């Protein structure tokens, strides 16, 4: 019986100049290509007022997502601004997770140098089983949260949530520090929640497929589909909540001059 190789880090499948192309990156590109094809198909419908089946399906998904996020934001103008970010997070993560259980992902291998020696590494690997991917999405989301917060409340007003003169408002200064830590903790929690779930699912499927290759993995594949959907939803909904907090929370503090609560709890 051959050994099961599990690597926490994604594997490099090729080099372009000094740039390493990871197997998870290939999956991300495939997911992007799939979404670009979807865009082309949607565009070819000419966005008719009386839609065909395909356009109606896309509209159903998009309007469903919009209504879901708008029900959290409670503001149509802000919902429109946040929607591209949170919707892309959801669609990209779910698609990446689901593509991760396609046949061939993890099972098609190539011989390549990994950790100093030639070994068989998977050509494709679930994109969210790579910290680089989940961290990239998490950083993008949190940067966007700061951007929208500063844009809606004003840069100085928004930054006062983090920075206060310690000699005038020592408590607020301390709370601001906690807020800043909270923002970083959000990135970490976002990153490792998604990575942990997908990596764990990948390991679980690998082990089950190794032990009982036929039939037994099917319920776990179904569970991974569900987990993939839930993880995308959690990531997108939490981003929406953080966006909502960023554009409203601080103003309430101006009104009653109450101490700023650390948002780390939310993360």
């Amino acid at each position, binding site marked *: 019986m051959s050994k099961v190789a599990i690597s926490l880090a994604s594997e490099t499948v090729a080099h372009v100049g000094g740039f*390493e192309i990871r197997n998870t990156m290939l999956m991300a590109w495939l997911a992007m290509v799939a*979404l670009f094809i979807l865009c082309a198909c*949607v565009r070819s419908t000419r966005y008719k007022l009386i839609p065909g089946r395909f356009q109606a399906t896309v509209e159903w998904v*998009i309007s469903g997502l919009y209504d879901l996020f708008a029900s959290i934001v409670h503001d149509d103008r802000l919902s429109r601004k946040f929607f591209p970010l949170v919707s892309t997070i959801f669609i990209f993560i779910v698609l990446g997770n689901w593509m991760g259980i396609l046949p061939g992902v993890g099972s098609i291998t190539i011989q390549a140098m990994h950790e100093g020696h030639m070994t068989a590494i998977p050509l494709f690997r679930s994109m969210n089983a790579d910290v*680089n991917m989940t961290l990239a999405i998490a950083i*993008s989301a949190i940067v966007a949260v700061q951007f929208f917060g500063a844009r809606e409340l004003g840069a100085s007003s928004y930054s006062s949530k983090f920075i206060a003169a310690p000699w005038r408002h020592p408590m607020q200064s301390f709370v601001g520090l906690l807020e800043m830590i909270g923002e970083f903790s959000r990135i970490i929690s976002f990153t490792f929640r998604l990575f942990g779930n997908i990596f764990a699912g990948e390991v679980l499927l690998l082990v089950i497929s190794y032990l009982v290759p036929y039939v037994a993995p099917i319920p776990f594949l179904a569970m991974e589909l569900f987990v993939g959907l839930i993880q995308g939803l959690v990531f997108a909904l939490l981003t929406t909540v953080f966006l909502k907090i960023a554009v409203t929370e601080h103003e309430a503090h101006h009104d009653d001059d109450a101490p700023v609560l650390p948002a780390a709890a939310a993360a």
Partner: protein
Amino acid sequence: MGDLVHALGIQWSALMAQMVNFAILIFVLARFVYKPILKVIDERRAMVEKSVETAREIDQFKERVDQDRLVILRKADEEAGQMLEKAAQNAEALRTEIEKAAHAHAAQIMKKGMEQLDVERARVAKEMQSKLAHAIVLSAEKILRREFSKEDQESFEKELKENLPALTA
């Protein structure tokens, strides 16, 4: 920290590449999917709202027209009733008038007839008186077996005519 980064395979170039990929994806999806689809949904919603509003206006208009129609019909019914009543009254008046005229005409005809009858009776009586007088004279001639002269005959007839008033009464 370095070991953790190495163990997790975190690489800044890969991280940046994924962030750029993600940004491109947001841009493309927003440009070709989210905005146009939300726009078309908004347009459709506006159109549906407008259609619903138009349908509501049409319903209200129809209701108004129905009410107006009922009012007009009721008014027409009333007018028709009044006209019928008036026509009946006119007909009654005309009938009465015609009846009166007919009665008057009949009375006039009767009167004229009676007058003619009187005239005729007088004429007949006069004629009969004359013929009777002549007959009496002739009879008297035969009884007396003599012939009256022309003058006698005329004198007798005249006398008889004057003495026979009962025939003309």
